[in-house]
């Protein structure tokens, strides 16, 4: 597995889209900090860009990469390798490449302009989101025969998690606002990896407001060691489960 992984990474290191991704993030981040006279605002804008962009690009990149790589993957499947090793190697290689691109593009300028707990959380959750959506992208790609259809499903997944899910949440809140749904809302939000990442960052940015609410549920839920651990575990599951599903689907697939 590591052999496949190694050469796939060498290939990806020269991949123009992976490099382009790093460059795009670099331009966005540096541009934000240069053009935006206020660092706080730049950081908050960057947070929103990262929360939207990393899932989208991880999905689309992984799907397109999988289909570009398909013939070679078939050749690999003819080698004396278990199928699972191929998928794992590809997942590790692609997600590593994208995480490195992300850390390069966002991490470097962030360390220069706005180091601190928010930046740290942003880098951590951005990396986690990359891992999650690489896995989802791989799963989608493996299950589809048609590239365009796979990209379409990827985009739909992104819109759902980015927008529709939150709309649904708000709808639930308004519809059942007279019932004790409060304990339900936070776990429900935390089910969506984008929301969970956003909440983890928000806990730092909007801490002052959150502490204004009696009960300080958010602090209890996420601020405690257990909550942090649960959040990390949830994000990890969001990466591992689709990756495992992709591995299984690929192993069973007729190539």
């Amino acid at each position: 597995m590591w052999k496949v992984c190694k050469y796939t990474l060498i290939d990806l290191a020269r991949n123009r889209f992976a490099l382009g991704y790093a460059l795009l993030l670099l331009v966005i981040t540096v541009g934000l900090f240069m053009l935006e006279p206020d660092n706080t605002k730049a950081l908050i804008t960057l947070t929103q860009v990262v929360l939207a962009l990393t899932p989208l690009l991880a999905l689309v990149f992984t799907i397109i990469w999988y289909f570009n790589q398909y013939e070679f993957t078939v050749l690999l499947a003819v080698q004396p390798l278990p199928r699972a090793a191929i998928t794992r190697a590809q997942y590790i290689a692609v997600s590593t490449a994208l995480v490195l691109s992300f850390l390069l593009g966002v991490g470097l300028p962030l360390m220069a302009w706005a180091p601190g707990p928010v930046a740290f959380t942003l880098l951590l959750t951005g990396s986690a989101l990359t891992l999650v959506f690489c896995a989802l992208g791989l799963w989608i790609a493996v299950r589809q025969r048609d590239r365009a259809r796979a990209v379409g499903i990827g985009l739909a997944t992104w819109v759902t998690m980015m927008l529709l899910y939150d709309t649904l949440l708000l709808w639930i809140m308004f519809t059942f606002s007279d019932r004790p749904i409060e304990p339900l809302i936070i776990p429900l939000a935390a089910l969506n990896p984008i929301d969970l990442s956003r909440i983890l960052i928000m806990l730092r940015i909007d801490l002052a407001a959150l502490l204004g609410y009696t009960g300080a549920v958010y602090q209890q839920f996420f601020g405690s060691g257990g909550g942090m651990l649960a959040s990390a575990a949830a994000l990890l599951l969001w990466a591992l489960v689709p990756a495992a599903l992709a591995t299984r689907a690929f192993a069973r697939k007729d190539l």
Partner: protein
Amino acid sequence: MDRIVIEGLGKRYGRQWALRGVNARFAPGEVVMVIGPNGSGKTTLIKCLLGLVHATEGGIVVSGKPVGKDPSYRAGIGYMPQLAEFPRELTVEQLLRMMNDIRDARSGSSDDRLINLLGVDALLDKRISALSGGMRQKVSAVLAFRYRPEILVLDEPTAGLDPVSAGKLLDAVMRARREGATVIITSHIMEEVQRLGDRVVYMEDGRLRFTLPPELIAEATGEKSLSAALPKYIAQLPPQHVEGL
């Protein structure tokens, strides 16, 4: 002893059988040409052998090992797909090294004759993305022959090659045969089939219709060339059994 034993092999996609009731045995030192119209099941048959497609029923045994979850039987297989694609940003040398690593091949154990024969040695520093289609086919051929496979599976091997390289490749096939490999080739070029094949496997509608040496087919129809003999031979076959299809 037969190197490849195919028994009752069937593959169904949805409700459609792509392959059904295929039985065949292939020996060491034998060149098998698989022919048949498009959609006849040639590709599915080969993919089953390579482990790319999971059989719905029946099975294949390769050198005593069943084709299935354990990938180790594939160590003895060399495969040259019809259209070879490799990671675009690797150099040819890196690609060769990657395959070496995957095969755990020690230097010296691999067969590098084709590298020089096909002129791939001049391409070692080049990135895959800089190669033409023909060059990639040559690299693909090198990879297929490199680990002295017991079984060579070549899918339209000469399709993208210039005549000189095609000739060299077919020489390599004959050499592999002499050294005891079982070679399975799909081809549309009847001259090739006639010249190389010890046996012709004819597929139609997911069924294996016959396996015969090419000279017997020619004999039966009184034609000299296989391209002329084959249509005649097929025409006189009894109509296809359709149960279950």
